[in-house]
C-alpha cells in the first residue's frame, strides 16, 4: 500500500516536472524565435520586458490567461472545445520516452520511438477537429491541408527513422543512444541522408515554414486556429512549440548521439543539441518562402518517399551483406 502511494506521488511529481518543462521551454522558444527572426531582419525584437525582453513571453502568457473566453456562435461546441487538448496532450505524452540523460527518462519503453511516432500522430486529429469544429471555411481548409500534409510526410519520416532503428537494432530510445556512444549516426552517409529526410519531413510535420500551408496567413487568415483566442489559442501555440522541441529532441536522440558528450553533464548536452536544431529550424523558417500545396504533396510522394525507400533498401543490404 505504502509503495503504491509513493509511486503515485512520484508520478504526479514527474508529470508536474514535465508540464513545467514544457511551459518553460515553449515560452523560451517563443522569445528565442522572435529574437532570431528579428536579428535576421536587422531588427532587435522584444527589448522592454526584462533583459533583452526575456520576460516578454511571460507577460504575453499572463495576458492570454486573463483574456475572455470567446466562443463563436456557429461552432460545434464539443469538437471545438476538445481540439486544443487533442493538440497539447499528445505533446505531453511524448515526453515519457524522451531520454534527457542516462537515467533522466520517465520510462524507457522497449518500443520508444514507435510510441513517440504513434502518439504524436494524434496531434493532427486535434488540428483537424479545430478546423472542422470552427465552422469557418478558412479553418476547415487549414485543417484539411494539415491532415493531408501530416499524413503524407509521416511516411518519409518513419522510413528514415526505421533506418536508425535497423542500425541500432532496437526501438528503445536509450538503446539507440547507447549505440551511438562511439560516433554519431549522422556521420554515416546513409544515415546522413535519413537525417536530411527526417528534418525536412519533421519541418512539415510541425507545420513550420516553408511547409506552413495549414496556417498560411496570406491564404487562410490563421488556418485552423482562426476562431480561437485566449488560453485555447495559447494551447495551440504551446502545442506547436512543444512539437518543435519534440521533433528536434528525436533528431538529437536518433542522429546526433543523444545525451552523449564530453565534460558537460548529459542533460546539458542533450538540451544544447536540441536547441541547436531548433535554432536551425528557425533560421530556415525566416529564410525560405512557403511552398504551394501541389508542390508540397508532390515533394512528399514523388521525391522524399522513393528516396527514403531506396535508402532503407540500401541500409538493409549494407547490414545483411
Amino acid at each position, binding site marked *: 500500500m505504502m509503495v503504491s502511494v509513493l509511486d503515485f506521488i512520484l508520478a504526479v511529481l514527474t508529470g508536474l516536472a514535465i508540464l513545467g518543462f514544457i511551459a518553460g521551454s515553449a515560452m523560451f522558444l517563443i522569445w528565442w524565435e522572435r529574437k*532570431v527572426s*528579428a*536579428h*535576421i*531582419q*536587422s*531588427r*532587435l525584437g522584444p*527589448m522592454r520586458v526584462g533583459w533583452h525582453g526575456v520576460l516578454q513571453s511571460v507577460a504575453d502568457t499572463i495576458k492570454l490567461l486573463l483574456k475572455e473566453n470567446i466562443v463563436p456562435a456557429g461552432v460545434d461546441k464539443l469538437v471545438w472545445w476538445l481540439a486544443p487538448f487533442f493538440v497539447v496532450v499528445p505533446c505531453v505524452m511524448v515526453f515519457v520516452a524522451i531520454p534527457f540523460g542516462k537515467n533522466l527518462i520517465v520510462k524507457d519503453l522497449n518500443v520508444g520511438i514507435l510510441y513517440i511516432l504513434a502518439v504524436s500522430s494524434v496531434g493532427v486529429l486535434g488540428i483537424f477537429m479545430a478546423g472542422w469544429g470552427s465552422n469557418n471555411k478558412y479553418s476547415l481548409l487549414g485543417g484539411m491541408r494539415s491532415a493531408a500534409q501530416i499524413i503524407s510526410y509521416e511516411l518519409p519520416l518513419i522510413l528514415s527513422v526505421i533506418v536508425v532503428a535497423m542500425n541500432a537494432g532496437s526501438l528503445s530510445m536509450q538503446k539507440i543512444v547507447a549505440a551511438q556512444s562511439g560516433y554519431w549516426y549522422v556521420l554515416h552517409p546513409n544515415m546522413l541522408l535519413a537525417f536530411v529526410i527526417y528534418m525536412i519531413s519533421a519541418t512539415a510535420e510541425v507545420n513550420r515554414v516553408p511547409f506552413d500551408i495549414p496556417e498560411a496567413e496570406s491564404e487562410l487568415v490563421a488556418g485552423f486556429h482562426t476562431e480561437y483566442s485566449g488560453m485555447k489559442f495559447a494551447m495551440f501555440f504551446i502545442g506547436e512549440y512543444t512539437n518543435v522541441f519534440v521533433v528536434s529532441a528525436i533528431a538529437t536522440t536518433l542522429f546526433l548521439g543523444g545525451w552523449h558528450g564530453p565534460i558537460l553533464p548529459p542533460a546539458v548536452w542533450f538540451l544544447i543539441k536540441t536547441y541547436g536544431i531548433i535554432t536551425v529550424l528557425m*533560421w*530556415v523558417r*525566416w*529564410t*525560405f518562402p512557403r511552398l504551394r500545396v501541389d508542390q508540397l504533396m508532390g515533394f512528399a510522394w514523388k521525391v522524399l518517399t522513393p528516396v527514403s525507400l531506396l535508402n532503407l533498401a540500401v541500409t538493409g543490404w549494407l547490414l545483411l551483406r
Partner: protein
Amino acid sequence: MAVTKMIKRVKNFAVGAWSLVKGLSVTLKYCFKPAVTVQYPTQKLPMAERFRGLVGLRPEKCIMCYQCVKICPTGCLAITHKVQEDKKKTLETFRYNMELCCFCGLCAQVCPTSAIIMTDIYEITVYDRAKLNIDLLDAKKYDEWTGATIK
C-alpha cells in the same frame, strides 16, 4: 531524349538546392549585422536641418514688424507690443496657438531677423488643450511643454 530530360532535372535540382544554401547564407550574414532599430523613447534619431517642428521665438531679435502674423495661413500667432517713451518698442505678448498651427514654416521664412525659428521639437502632445495655447515669451511654460514628453 529521356536522358537529356533527366540531366535537365538533376541540374534543376542542383540549382535549387544551391539556391537554398545561398538564401541561408544571406540570412545568416544579416543575423550578425547590427540592427537598425532605434529604441525610440530612450534613443532618438537626429532631426533633419530643415525639419519643421514646434515654432520657437528669440524675443531679443524681434522687431515687431507683424509680418509673421500677416502671413500665417491659420492665424495662430497674435502679438501685442507697447511703445516706450524713447519710442522703442517692446514685446508684450506673443501668443502661439498650436492647435491651429499647420507647421508650414512661413512665419520663420518671412521673419526679417530670424526671430521666429522652426525648432526640431516634435514631442508636443499634452493632456490639456489649454496648454497648447501659450505665450512664447513665457520661457518657463515653453520648456515645461517641450520637456514634458522627453522625460
